[in-house]
């Protein structure tokens, strides 16, 4: 339950996407601790009444965060995964949650691909590098990544991969693809 006593550096990646796409499952597949859960509240300031009225009886929006932890083999680095819904209206809270994150993994469900746009907008606005992982479900039609890339209008440099959120190995591959992409986007260090 406790962090290693080696004073590790902590890093953070976001796992996001629409409801029911497999975020919690993904975080659970990789976490070395039972996944933890917090509810983060956004109080409404200057929010139009019709926005509030979408959640009757509430004056604040709650965003659920599932997070898990992964100590890397050398023991000097601990990775946190923050699983959060990727809805654009959560932007201010999401930016706060994502502060310091290296990047984001967007989970997409091909049966409702358009739902991924909201998460893409959110992350682009937050300015994080991201990778899209298509999560396959039993009734998912055969996946053609080229067509999905076109449908999502993904930047050619943005990785698009397939992943089963229930399988640890595939989840690791997704994080590796994301981290490679993060590295591509970081400026080369100039020699002193």
């Amino acid at each position, binding site marked *: *339950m*406790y*962090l290693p*006593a080696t*004073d590790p*550096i*902590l*890093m*953070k990646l976001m796992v996001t996407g629409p409801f029911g796409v497999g975020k919690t499952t993904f975080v659970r597949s990789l976490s070395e*601790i039972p996944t*933890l*859960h*917090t*509810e*983060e*509240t*956004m*109080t*409404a*300031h*200057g*929010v*139009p009444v019709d*926005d509030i009225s979408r959640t009757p009886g509430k004056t*604040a*929006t709650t965003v659920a*965060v599932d*997070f898990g*932890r*992964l100590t*890397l*083999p*050398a023991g*000097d*680095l601990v*990775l*946190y995964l923050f699983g959060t819904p990727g809805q*654009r*209206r*959560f*932007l*201010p*809270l999401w930016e*706060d*949650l994502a502060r*310091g994150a*290296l990047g984001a993994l967007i989970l997409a469900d091909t049966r409702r691909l358009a739902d991924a746009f909201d998460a893409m*907008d959110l992350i682009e606005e937050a300015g994080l590098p991201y990778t899209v992982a298509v999560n396959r479900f039993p009734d998912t039609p055969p996946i053609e990544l080229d067509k999905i890339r076109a449908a999502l209008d993904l930047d050619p440099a943005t990785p698009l991969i397939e992943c089963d959120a229930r399988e640890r*190995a595939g989840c*690791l*591959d997704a*994080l*590796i693809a994301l*981290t*490679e992409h*993060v*590295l591509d986007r*970081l400026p*080369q*260090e100039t020699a002193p």
Partner: protein
Amino acid sequence: MTTPSGPRRRLVPAYLATQGRTAAAGRHSLDRLSILHAAADLPAGLGGEHRQLWELVRPGALTVAEAAAHLRLPVSATVFIAADLAERGALKVRAPIPSAQPVNRDLAERLLSGLRALK
């Protein structure tokens, strides 16, 4: 993307509501991944949630986010209590990345080789 009509909506994270108090509580700037570890005895007169947090991180270190989840407290409240305890010397707080260096290639490369080593 649709452009909202009227004034741009601004939803303020709840913790900002306590920002004044948190700032007044000390120099420690606390993040969700700030690392908390009990440092000394619990100052007399502190009970309730202060005691719960202090007892939670007595055997070992945890992040603010983990402590909040274990105690079933909002992150904003946990930040406030942790800052209070740190101010009184009962809690050590460490930043997630010690020297506050920005994310750099070295860290990302270490993460990448660590992930590959897990396979």
